[in-house]
């Protein structure tokens, strides 16, 4: 019961935040709602017992990436930008297509639930929650044993991105 309330709260917040990100005129407001949405997602991870991911989401997304976003918005924020048209002319087409996509996926989900094969796919998890605790140690072991090569590749990707961002951002090299 409590879990369900928490879930609906976080889910509602995440979706509402997402919608507001897309609709706000001012980029800073968008960023604030994106932060809200990301925090709510972190909350969702908590309801999934993924505590480590909850922390990673906050530290990296909220404390890292979003700071970068806000920083850049402030650097490039022109008062002029606010008076420009914020949406392009393909709004209706885009909306229609997106809703078609949404409807399709929802239909697929509904079908999966009703069909017999789907029942096996998407039941409430039968594994007791305690055993799948999003444990920090488990993730660490996984990352550094099974996935050590992807992990290193990811770190190289970050390094490349770092260098690239510096090259882009610097005026004179």
């Amino acid at each position, binding site marked *: 019961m409590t879990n369900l309330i928490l879930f609906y709260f976080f889910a509602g917040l995440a979706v509402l935040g997402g919608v507001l990100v897309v609709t706000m005129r001012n980029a800073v*407001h968008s960023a604030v709602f994106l932060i809200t949405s990301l925090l709510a997602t972190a909350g969702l991870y908590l309801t999934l017992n993924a505590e480590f991911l909850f*922390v990673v989401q*906050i*530290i990296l997304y*909220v*404390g890292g990436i979003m700071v970068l976003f*806000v920083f850049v918005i*402030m650097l490039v*924020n022109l008062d002029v930008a606010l008076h420009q048209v914020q949406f392009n002319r393909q709004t209706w087409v885009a909306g229609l297509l997106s809703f078609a996509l949404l409807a399709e996926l929802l239909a697929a989900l509904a079908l999966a639930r009703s069909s017999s094969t789907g029942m096996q796919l998407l039941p409430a998890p039968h594994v007791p929650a305690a055993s799948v605790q999003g444990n*920090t140690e488990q993730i660490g072991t996984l990352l550094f044993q099974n996935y050590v090569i992807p992990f290193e590749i990811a770190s190289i990707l970050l390094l490349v991105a770092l260098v690239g961002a510096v090259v882009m951002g610097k005026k004179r090299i």
Partner: protein
Amino acid sequence: MLQEAYFILSNYIWQIVDGLVIVAIFPLLAGYVVLLERKVMADMQARLGPMRVGPHGLLQPLADAVKLMIKEDIIPESADRAIFWLAPVLSVFAGMLSFAAIPVGPGFLIADMNIGLLFIFAVSSMGIFGIVLGGWASNSHYSLMGALRSSAQLVSYEVAVGMAMVSGLLLAGTLSMKDIVGYQAHSGFWLVFVAPVGFVIYLVGSVAETNRAPFDLPEAESELVAGYMTEYSGFRWALYFLAEYSNMVVVGSVATTLFLGGWLRPFAGTPAFHFLDYAPPLVMLGVTGYCVYRIPKQTGWDQKFIMAIFTGICFVITVPLAAALPHPVAGWQAGVHGAFWFIAKVMAYVYVFLWARFTFPRYRFDQLMQLGWHYLIPLSIVNVMGVATAIVLHREAGWNPVVSIGVTLVVTVLAALWLVRAGERREQATLKSAA
């Protein structure tokens, strides 16, 4: 529904009570840190500090709070009202939320999370938004520059601070705040003696993270007026202030837990030092006695009355400390004594902050960044590697812990000296090229 509520209440009653006590005490503590700061400052500067409100200015924090609450709340015309309103709240929210994972004493904490340390780290990194958004929403050059400086500074120093924490938790082998202290109790060494370099990095980094002098660039009054707080006034300004001082208490608490043995008494495992258990009640008794001695010296009956109240408070604190004396290792007794030692350590840590503030001039922004990126971050990486090596040497190769730690420590310190030398040479070069 009702049953569930009852279930929650009955199961979590102690957490709730602890939470209420901690949430009530810490803002008050933050307020009294302000008074402490002003008193320490006055002492270092050969003057008296606040003396008017209450005896020795003891009621000054309350008076300040009341004054700030009834002050006019000015919102600049061109400010972004919603974000202007949100930003300080966000700051305080981030500061306060961190208290949830701080163990004041054994069993005296709100939530024992198995990711407690990371939780505090994550939540306090949200505090940046309070500053950045506040600076942006004020729509003023000074505020924006303060905000940009502050975000750059916080992001840079977070790396060093995180690495310093890693060196601690590598040793403890857990992220739970409670277990970190438990590890120190078990091993008999505070981590500051095992990873001193990490502690020093954390100390410097946490001064920068809380925007305190000599790293108070975001609010440097001689350059940016008040940085991101320039346009704030009244209660919102007070919220920012509360956030800053709560953050000080939070970083003090983290340092205490991680490096200084949390709620543990000095020499907690050594029987020869058990007489130290008598210190808390005796200290409080001494304070009470001094208060009694000061009562007749106050001018006016009202001051005498307030002094008497403070005497009473001191005495009320003394009683449980004394009552816990016979068995101060378990149960509520340990909680009370632990809280005393914990708060004492946090206050000592905060005192270092104040000391630095009144002694050092302010860094310039590029120097600050240089210190972070050229010295602290490389050093913190070396430190983490050193601590890891020590652990491997001890656990895998079976070395004596003292030897393994000593060797890696020497290497780390040598690396630090080399960094400083290289930095000095670089400075000389830039000076020469400038001239």
